[in-house]
């Protein structure tokens, strides 16, 4: 799925000095994995996320997504990759204001070139447990609900890769856990998920954790993901992995 080799990203400051945000980072993510990239603020995790999300291009090294080297892609080509292959989930939800839940879910389809299916958007909202909220404006929804709308949106074009940037950062722990459990469930259905976070609790939901420090990949380890009930009234336990 993801094959990153010797990836570097350097920013030019206004005074001309260079900041090395990422240095020679290499790792791969196989299809169907649930990985967290953990690091403190300034560790380079945002830079890595932007490159993985095809919002930015590396200054050195290569990034192969689904076998395709996208490191040198043009803005237009990267837009197409974002539309078809990547679903984004953001810390601050980033839903469009003055727009209903279902309209937000439809937005990626506008840019994928095919039909915009209202039925599909509604079924995705149902999938994240918001069937009754489809026609609510986003401002009428709670934070947890907004993030679930965002997750439904990220699935609209059936992308093979979901990228989540601090998806629980603006939520209380209960709503945050619900969001992480939803992501874990989507992973169990076969989606590759990469979550970028500074939060160990969040990182604990994944089977593998990459640790970044000062732009360097300092650790890459497998772990037993935390085991949680999917819902309170469900007695069975799901083991992720």
């Amino acid at each position: 799925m993801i094959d990153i080799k010797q990836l570097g990203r350097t920013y030019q400051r206004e005074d001309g000095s260079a900041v090395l945000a990422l240095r020679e980072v290499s790792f791969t993510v196989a299809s169907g994995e649930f990985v967290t990239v953990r690091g403190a603020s300034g560790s380079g995790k945002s830079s890595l996320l932007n490159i993985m999300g095809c919002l930015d291009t590396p200054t050195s090294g290569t990034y192969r997504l689904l076998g395709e080297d996208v490191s040198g892609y043009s803005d237009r080509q990267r837009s197409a990759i974002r539309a078809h292959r990547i679903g984004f989930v953001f810390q601050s939800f980033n839903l469009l204001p003055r727009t209903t839940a279902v309209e937000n879910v439809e937005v990626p389809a506008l840019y994928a070139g095919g039909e915009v299916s209202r039925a599909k958007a509604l079924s995705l909202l149902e999938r994240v447990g918001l069937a009754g909220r489809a026609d609510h404006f986003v401002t009428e929804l709670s934070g947890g609900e907004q993030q679930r709308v965002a997750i439904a949106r990220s699935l609209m074009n059936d992308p093979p890769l979901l990228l989540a940037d601090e998806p629980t950062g603006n939520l209380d722990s209960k709503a945050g856990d619900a969001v992480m459990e939803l992501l874990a469930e989507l992973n169990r259905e076969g989606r590759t998920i990469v979550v970028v976070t500074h939060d160990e609790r969040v990182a604990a939901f994944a089977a593998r954790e990459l640790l970044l420090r000062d732009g360097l990949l300092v650790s890459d380890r497998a772990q037993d993901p935390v085991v949680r009930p999917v819902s309170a009234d469900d007695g069975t336990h799901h083991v992720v992995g």
Partner: protein
Amino acid sequence: MSWARTLGLALQTLRRNPLRSFLMMLGIAAGIASLIAMASVGEATRQETLRQFKRMVGNFDTITIQPGSARTRGMPSLTSVEPTLRFDDATAIRREVPNVRRVAQEQSAFDIDVQYRDRATAASIWGVSADWMDIRGDEVTVGRGISSEDEDALARVVVIGEDVRQALFPGEDPIGKTLRIAEVPFQVQGVLVSRGAGPGGSSLDNLLLMPVSTASKRLFSRDYLTGITVQLADPKDHDKAVAAIESLLRERHGIVPPVEDNFTVSNPRAAVAQVAEVSATLSSVLTGIAVIATLIGGIVIMSLMLIAVSERRREIGIRRALGATRSDVLRQFLAEAALIATLGGVMGVLLGVGGAAVAAVQQQLPPAFLWGAMVGAVLMAMLTGLLFGLQPAWRAANVDPIQALRS
């Protein structure tokens, strides 16, 4: 993204931001409204001016000749003109100039006292030959006009204008009544159809017509004319006829250039063309002002759009992250600008038509609906939107999604 989908998206944004959209439309609407109103009023004025001119000078197939050089013009009156234009000049023109259909002679004097019993008024007196009314397109409402029999008989008859009728015969049938001009009795035999007001605003109805022979021999005792009106058989050969008349009169009056003519041949058609040109210039100036107003409307759209772009950076970042290309964003904002401007244009056309209708009623002008101008104005509004939307749309397209999402 298809144009239809882009337009749908733009429409959605407009609907969800009604106040901002309305404010953006206002500027364009004001410009277009003034454009339509000015063009309509200009056109109505032009038509009205031509109509009035026609009423004053008759049909455009005539040439008028007045005594005196072009520099001594004014309203010719027996008391003010040189006695250079003779009755037989008119006869000679009739006989010798080709393409002449009819020739009418006139003797006019202004501000002459007219009395009927104890009522009095001051009016202009026109001694005219029998063809004069026909040539000018004048008609009577009641009674009859001046005939060649009246002329031959030196009949003491008059045809009065509407103002004279109102001044001397209020609520009374004037036909057959005898009024007095300088103590000479005249019988009223007709009333002229009102000609209304001239371009200067003064009434064209304060006059009396009588046979030119009667005027010359029984009233004024003058043997010269204040004017000759020539009607052409073929109005297209205007210039040739003017030249022929000029050379004939020079010969008859013994004038050899460079001696100045003691008569002036004028061509109402040229005068009308001049008036039409003046009003065309006026309407193009007004239209120019309105175009500038519309461009200012465009600038309003541009500045409000620029503000909107910086307010909507996050939205742009979200759309870009979800797969929108730069060109998708560019087109979205261009479509919004064009849509707003077009709607503003439609609003402006409605306002302008309304305004022109109000002005037409106030100024007593005929209503003018310039369909071409309306369609053109809406197109112009759309183009203005596209033009002034370009810069904001370009800025929107180049928003860095990473920066926008971080903010």
